Structures are given as structure tokens and as C-alpha cells.
């Protein structure tokens, strides 16, 4: 099967080895940059759309949004660049009034890290919506944290003062209580804990009423 090389084996010079590697690397780099450039716009657009959908889901009556960044002292506008743990999003209604912030928070769930985005209105200490960005919870049980509409709507109008607690399904009576999912108590509690942590982290950082960041560019959605 093996085909014999027609030329006698000859030790190539080191420079030739390095050279061929360099050429391969160069060509590969070219191809990669090519595909990157070709797909960049679509990918950026996809990501932006996905983000927008998520933000609109957790903040009611929002039609416009912008990305903000906490720089260690205050929240400032951030046009683009990578997201990190200090990134947040502000949502505005038709008239450009601030409707609330969309905050990301994560923490350990039943199986793996759960990442959620939740809508928050600091003025009245309220969570107004929750959306799971990422989770590997058990199908059929833990995944109800995003599949079970009844659970998700728990977070549509939830007081965070005192912090949110989970209660047995059907016994919800106070403004800060969440009905746990039967059989997936751990996942339910994990979501609540993650949101509580997010609230705790962001509550002090968010600007006071009156100092809210204004929607910068009109019409930007």
C-alpha cells in the first residue's frame, strides 16, 4: 500500500522546515482572517439581535436599549467592545424614559453554571422579568426554570426587599416569594439565589433616581 518516495531521502535544512511551517501558518492565517471578516457582520448582528430579544423579554414595554458599563465608580455608556461582568443594559420605552435595567448574573445550579438575565427597577426594588441565558439543568425537571411559563412569570413583578425567597408551589402569598418548581427545588432556589446576588451586587452601583443615563442616540434600537 505504501507508495515509495521517488527521490532518495534527504534531510531538509532547518530553515526549510521553519520556512514551510511559516508558509503554512501564513496561509492559514489568511484563510482564517478571510472567514472572520466575511462572517463578522452577520455574527455581530445575530448576537445583537439575540441580546435585544433577551433584554426586551425581561423588561416590559421596552422598545429601545443601550449598553452601559460600570467603571468602578459609576455607570457610563459603552458603545461596543466585549461584555464582561460589569456590563449592563438599560431599556427605554417609546418616549425614551428609562424602564429598567437588564442585569446578567450567574452561579452554580443543580448541574452546572446557570446564567440569567433579569430586569430590575431600582427605584421600587423590583425584579420585572427573568430569562435564562445558559443552563444545563436536568431535562424534564430543572429545565423548567425556563420551560415552565408559570415559574418564569413569578419574576414579572417581584419585590426584592426583603430578598426573594422560594416557597412550596401554590403557597406564594407575599411580594417577595417565588413558587418553587415541584421536583426541582434546587434549580428554583438556584435561580432565586443568583438573582438575589445580582441585585445585591448592582443595587449600590446603579445611579440614583434622577441621574439615570439618558438614551443617547434617538432611534437606536
Amino acid at each position, binding site marked *: 500500500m505504501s507508495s515509495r518516495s521517488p527521490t532518495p531521502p534527504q534531510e531538509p535544512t532547518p530553515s526549510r522546515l521553519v520556512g514551510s511551517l511559516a508558509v503554512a501558518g501564513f496561509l492559514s492565517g489568511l484563510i482564517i482572517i478571510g472567514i472572520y471578516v466575511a462572517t463578522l457582520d452577520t455574527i455581530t448582528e445575530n448576537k445583537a439581535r439575540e441580546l435585544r430579544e433577551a433584554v426586551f423579554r425581561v423588561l416590559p414595554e421596552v422598545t429601545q436599549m443601550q449598553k452601559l458599563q460600570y467603571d468602578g465608580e459609576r455607570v457610563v455608556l459603552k458603545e461596543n467592545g466585549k461584555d464582561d461582568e460589569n456590563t449592563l443594559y438599560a431599556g427605554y420605552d417609546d418616549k425614551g424614559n428609562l424602564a429598567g435595567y437588564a442585569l446578567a448574573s450567574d452561579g452554580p445550579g*443543580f448541574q452546572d453554571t446557570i446564567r440569567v438575565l433579569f430586569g430590575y427597577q431600582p427605584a421600587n426594588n423590583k425584579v420585572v422579568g427573568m430569562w435564562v441565558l445558559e443552563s444545563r439543568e436536568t431535562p*424534564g*425537571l430543572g429545565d423548567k426554570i425556563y420551560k415552565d411559563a408559570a415559574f418564569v412569570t413569578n419574576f414579572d413583578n417581584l419585590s426584592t426587599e426583603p430578598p426573594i425567597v422560594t416557597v*412550596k408551589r401554590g403557597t406564594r402569598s407575599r411580594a417577595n416569594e417565588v413558587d*418553587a418548581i415541584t*421536583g426541582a*427545588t434546587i434549580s428554583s432556589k438556584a435561580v432565586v439565589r443568583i438573582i438575589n446576588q445580582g441585585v445585591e451586587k448592582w443595587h449600590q452601583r446603579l445611579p440614583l433616581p434622577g441621574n439615570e443615563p439618558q438614551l443617547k442616540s434617538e432611534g437606536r434600537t
Partner: protein
Amino acid sequence: MSKHDPKLLLQSAPLLRQGMTTPAAMRDVWIALLPASLAALWYFGLAALLVLLTSIAGAVLTEWLFTPRERRAITLHDNSAALTGLLLGLTLPPALPLWMAFLGGMASIGLGKIIWGGLGSNIFNPALVGRAFLLATFPNAMTTWTAQSGPADFLTLHASNLALPFMQAPTVGAGTDAMTTATPLNLMKFEHQGTDLGALLLGNTSGSLGETSALLLILGGIYLFLRRGLDWRIPLGILGSAALFSAALFLIEGDKYPTPLFSLLSGGMLLGAIFMATDPVTSPVTPKGAWLFAIGVGLLVVLIRVFGGFPEGMMYAILLMNAATPLIDRYTQPRAFGRKRATK
């Protein structure tokens, strides 16, 4: 004159045997499980009987199907497949659809035993393999606990028992929700609520079929111990280490963690410690190894119950230590007579 005597056998010594045989040992376990099984019927009625019978049927049928014809007589005679089915059945919730119990019996024997080469060759406890399979496969049905019906309504059946194969339990709504209750362990884990110790002893709590009555399980354990059917180190080691660990936690934060006695009497602790972990095939054969194994199980149970995601950790604790058993056995070889120390 010198003739070979054709009538004489030439079996080599020893010719004497002690009386116990493997099938008899299995029978002893059956007898020891009898009180707990009868209690299951008393508390959960006909449903319990059906669940137990179907899981036994699943186990025996699978054993029969996958055993080569020439070995069937022996493998079925040793009572072990049916015993696996019974043990599995005792860990199931009373309202489980029967087809799931049957499937669990099949998984127990198929995945837990036949694949490995049959009785004696498996690493994991077959009944628990079956249960772990069911719990991972049907997490909802496997964690739906019904209240005890009591002897008066012996004939009541749960609608969910009779679900069609591969189909869900028919009613999921207010009707069934009213019937379902939380087990003592659920109450402890999610509500930090204890249960009366008397109820735990007698068994009038909810839970899986065979685990509720601590008293009857202990009774079975004593019988087995007297018949030399179990390695006493294993239950003792498990209960001891679990009690110590939970006592430590209880002393640190008493209102959050259960009392040691609750830990020992609730859930599958006793059923597991007396009947599952002691399965000789899947536990270490050396005495020192048995201690290590038992302590490992005890610590893991409390770890999973208290810090883990499940209210009950007995099954996982035993399976995990089963996996470690070859290693434990390897490093706890007894010190051979006249040798300095144990070699690996």
C-alpha cells in the same frame, strides 16, 4: 491381582463442607426482607404488591432471556435474580407506573449483572443500578410520593400504577397533587422540618415501599447477622460514620441540619446499609476494606443529603463506593501470615 478399582471416585480433599450454600444465603436475605415487604403491603396496599411483583418479573425474565440455555438451571436456581427484583421493588415509590418497575427490573439485571458476566462478576449493586437508571430516566415519576393508604383501603390502586407502557401517568393535576406528600427527607431538606421518630421507627410515613419501617429493617438485619448472611462491619460502619458526621453538623447548626437519629432512621439509610451495601459481590471482601467502604458510604450519604442536590443519597453513595471497591480491595489485602505487612 493389582487392579484399578473402577468404583472409586478420586475427588481431591477436602471432602467435608460446611452447610451453607449460596442459594441458601440468598434465601436468608429473602426471609430477612419479609417483614419489610409485608409492611409495604400493610401500608401501601395492593399497589405495593403489584410494583414488587412487576419489578421481580422484569428481573427474572431478563435473567432468563440473556442467560445461555445450558446455564439457566443454575442461574435461576440461585434465587439471585428474583432477589435483585425484590430489592429494587422495595426502593420504588408506590405509585410508580408498573411498566417502569418492569423496565427497572430489566435494567437491574441487564445493565447491572448480565453484561458483567452474571452473578458474582458485577461491580455495581444490580438493584441500585436499576434504581439509578429509573431515577435518571423518569425523575418525575420516581420522586412522586403518595401518602399511605393503610390496610383499610388495601384494594385501592393508584391510577398512575396502571399507566400504559411508555406513557405518562394519566393524571397530573389537582387530584393527584392532593394525594402526593413529601417524604421525611424531603421535608427535612426543603422545609428543615423533622419527622416524629416513632413514625420513622414504625414506618407510617411516606417513602419508597421498603424503606419506611426502621424497626422491621433492623429486625431483618439482626436475622441476617445471626445467620452470618451479612458482614456486620458494613452496616455498623455506615451507620456509625453517618451518625458521627451528622452529629457534627447538628452541633454546628442544629436548626438547619437533622439530628443524627433522624439521619439514621429516615429514608433509605437502613434499607441501604443492611441490604444493599452488604451485597457481598459489590462490597470489599477484606475486613479492613469493609470498614473503609462503609465509612465512605456513610460520609457520602450525609454529604449528598446535606450539601447535595438530592434529598436522599444512599443509592449514589453505595454506587460510588461500589466503583471504588476494586481499589479498596486491592489496597487492603490482609497481611499474609508471617509476612511483614500487607502488600498491594
